[in-house]
């Protein structure tokens, strides 16, 4: 439908820089997710795309059209708000019909289209109700119906699922995805929930303090986060960071990352970028990449080190084990069948050494 392009968009409220020099291209027909913690400027960015706020500087393009100063009503977009923002005095029918009435469509046409979307979203039975007579989930569907009824060229969604209960949220999520694929409308979806971001988005943009730190598909964001901030924000539980140094083994002619008992081979190209032997770097290891093994069943294969169990958190089929290595705490995810108790001596193994990534200690940037 439309490609959205933001160039050097900045928004300042008084002393707060809500959005800081943001550059972004959202591709046609894409489901793009803006992910970031509360207050990082996601809603502000969305409002700028909608035309509800004017950027302090920078430009917004829809395809090649400069829409920076186009008022929202002329942008032909639809938006779903966190609170749904249904018009309290109107019935569901009138809420859904509102965008069409404003455009002065014929009565019969309006009726036909409202019925169509109501059917699509299974809300025919709600059409006569007012917002305060509906449940949260029902309101969410009506808000969605209002957004799709007039076939806009762009969907903007500001945490539309955060006000409904966990179970309903999962079905709503799949339904949203199905709907977006079917309609093929470019969608920008804002959330602070990474599960949502990872399951729904074609691509994800991670925002922090008004800055867009990284844009990429879910796997890329997860496996190759551009810096320690993204790496630390994305993934549950968060990534383990350990600070070690680079050592050169003259006998083998290879570089190693060394920290306590951990010795990991690193490529020569990475070493060059940080200046070689003796330099300090930060290694990032996903908890999923660490395996905890009982000391007695340990056989020396791969890279492993001794540790002591610190805490065990059971989360259903998986447990998060925090282990203590010389006062440094690392987290690992293990199947819940493995029964461990605090203070038990264990061996921790790095499952896939290739997936360990390194960050520059000073800048926090990923070393590639």
């Amino acid at each position, binding site marked *: 439908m439309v490609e959205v392009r933001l160039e050097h968009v900045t928004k300042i409220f008084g002393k707060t820089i809500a959005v800081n020099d943001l550059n972004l291209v959202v591709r046609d027909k894409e489901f793009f997710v803006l992910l970031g913690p509360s207050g990082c400027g996601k809603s502000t960015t969305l*409002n700028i795309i*909608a*035309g*509800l706020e004017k950027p302090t500087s920078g430009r917004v393009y829809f395809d090649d059209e400069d829409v920076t100063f186009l*008022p*929202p*009503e002329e*942008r*032909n*977009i*639809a*938006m779903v*708000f*966190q*609170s749904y*923002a*249904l*018009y*309290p*005095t*109107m019935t569901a029918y009138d809420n859904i019909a*509102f*965008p069409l009435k*404003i*455009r002065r469509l014929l009565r019969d046409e309006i009726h036909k289209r409202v019925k169509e979307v109501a059917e699509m979203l299974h809300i025919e039975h709600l059409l006569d109700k007012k917002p305060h007579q509906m449940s949260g989930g029902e309101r969410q569907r009506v808000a969605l119906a*209002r957004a799709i009824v*007039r076939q806009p060229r762009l969907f*903007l969604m500001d945490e539309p699922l955060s006000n409904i209960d966990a179970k309903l949220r999962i079905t709503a999520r799949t339904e949203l995805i199905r709907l977006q694929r079917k309609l093929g409308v470019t969608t920008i979806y804002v959330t602070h929930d990474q599960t949502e971001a990872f399951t729904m988005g074609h691509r994800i943009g991670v925002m922090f303090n008004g800055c867009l730190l990284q844009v990429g598909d879910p796997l890329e964001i997860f496996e190759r986060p551009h810096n320690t901030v993204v790496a630390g924000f994305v993934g549950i539980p968060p990534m383990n960071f350990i600070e070690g140094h680079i050592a050169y083994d003259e006998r083998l002619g290879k570089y190693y990352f060394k920290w306590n008992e951990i010795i990991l081979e690193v490529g020569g190209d990475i070493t060059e970028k940080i200046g070689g032997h003796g330099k300090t770097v930060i290694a990032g290891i996903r908890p999923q990449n660490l395996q905890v093994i009982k000391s007695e069943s340990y056989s020396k294969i791969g890279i492993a080190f001794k540790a002591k169990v610190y805490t065990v958190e059971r989360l259903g089929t998986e447990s998060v084990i925090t282990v203590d290595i010389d006062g440094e705490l690392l987290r690992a995810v293990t199947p819940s069948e493995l029964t461990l108790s605090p203070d038990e001596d264990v061996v921790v193994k790095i499952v896939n050494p290739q997936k360990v990534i390194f960050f520059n200690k000073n800048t926090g940037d990923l070393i590639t």
Partner: protein
Amino acid sequence: MKKALLIIGIVFVVLWSIIPIYWALNISLMYHFEVYSVPAHLFPEHPTLYNYLRSLGFSVFNPFTNRVDPPVGYPIREALINSFVVASMVSLITIAIATPAGYALGRYRTRHSGLLTALLLGSRTLPPVSILIPLYIIGLRYRLLGTTHGITVMHLALVLPLTTWILMGFFSTFPSEIEKAARVDGATRLQAIVRVVIPTALPAIVSAGLLSFLFSYNEYLFSWVFTSGTPAQTIQPTLASMWFMIGEINIMAAATILSLIVPVVISLYFQKYIIQVRLVDPYALAFE
């Protein structure tokens, strides 16, 4: 023990609120000769609507003097109509000015809104008696005395800060997302206000309008100075002027009770509003 205390309390509340009204009602239902009984009668011996009918401009047969008494010489009915007209105009104009202003102050933070809010607050706490003199002189100069529109303008002076203050408070808690949704749905700024914001705010706007109505209807000081003794005379100064009509105490009581009908009806509406936790700023509901 607690129960007994509560019952005493409830009885006290009822008596306290009712007795003053009851006493005037009691006298308003008496013929003239009964009013001066010693000691005063606690109930009318010959209850009659004689006083009400005469107040409202009818001739009434008095069985005790065997005479048909003419309507009273005071324009009570006209005064009630005048009050109604003035109060209606005041509330409509106030709403027309205060709704956009309250919306602007509650919704947008501009450079001058702090100053304007302070100004509103200052005007709100201005004692009426202290702007009465200058406004009276202005009224003299622009021939506003003795006219319906003159007293309307004076009541606007008193009621605008109050109404704007109430509506500003309302709009500052109004969810702006609803208005944003309307914009994205294709409504212009004005369309969003007219088709979405105003319908949603209607209960608050109506309440503010009714308050201005009641304020104007109840206002005495300006009404006396501007309309007493003229064809534009409203109900409060009429009550006041009737106190000079010695000997017609029972008629006057009927007029007082008649003047209370409008406030009673409005208070029934506000009961709901006032009992819910929406009574946030009592100043907004208080008037001279």
